[in-house]
């Protein structure tokens, strides 16, 4: 059974804190993705990675960075959290040729 796990379901941080969101997949997928989900805006791509140590910016990368040191793990970093980064964060992974994305359960981040 395919599995994408995220380190926390709920997270509360203070403005200015450095925040790490972790995602792990057990399917040996090459591609991994970070999205944020806000009401009425759908799923917006922050960053994706198509191989270890490789990354590409998505549509809304400002204020975020990522790290992929191992194939199964993809981290999203908020260098200095701000209140407008309060959101639901979803991680996904996929593999060629189908490119079907498998999503984790999400992390609801609140920045106070």
């Amino acid at each position: 059974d395919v599995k994408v796990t995220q380190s926390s379901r709920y997270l509360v941080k203070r403005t200015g804190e450095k925040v790490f969101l972790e995602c792990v997949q057990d399917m040996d997928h090459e591609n991994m993705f970070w999205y944020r989900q806000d009401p009425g805006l759908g799923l917006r791509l922050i960053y994706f990675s198509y191989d270890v140590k490789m990354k590409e910016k998505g549509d809304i990368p400002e204020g975020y960075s990522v790290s992929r040191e191992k194939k199964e793990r993809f981290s999203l970093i908020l260098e200095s959290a701000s209140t407008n980064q309060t959101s639901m964060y979803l991680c996904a992974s996929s593999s060629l040729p189908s490119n079907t994305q498998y999503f984790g359960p999400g992390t609801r981040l609140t920045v106070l």
Partner: protein
Amino acid sequence: QQPVQSPQAVILREGEDAVINCSSSKALYSVHWYRQKHGEAPVFLMILLKGGEQKGHDKISASFNEKKQQSSLYLTASQLSYSGTYFCGTEYESNTGKLIFGQGTTLQVKP
């Protein structure tokens, strides 16, 4: 570049049909459909490839109109379990794996 989904929301009675559209202003390579139930992760439904045939399973099917750069998801004889938010994810370049998702369509099926 985000595809546009319509309608934004729809309410049905059990047994009624619904159509959700996903339109792009840019040429599409493929369209993926996902459903997200409240409090859960999005789950893959099906993929439509450029030049491919209409897909479907059970009472949910989809089509891809290359001329209009539009995909439509058809839900027939809806069941309570169909309730959720439906997203289309569009792929503009072949086999990059990168999807751009629409804003979602919320479907509520009532008894």
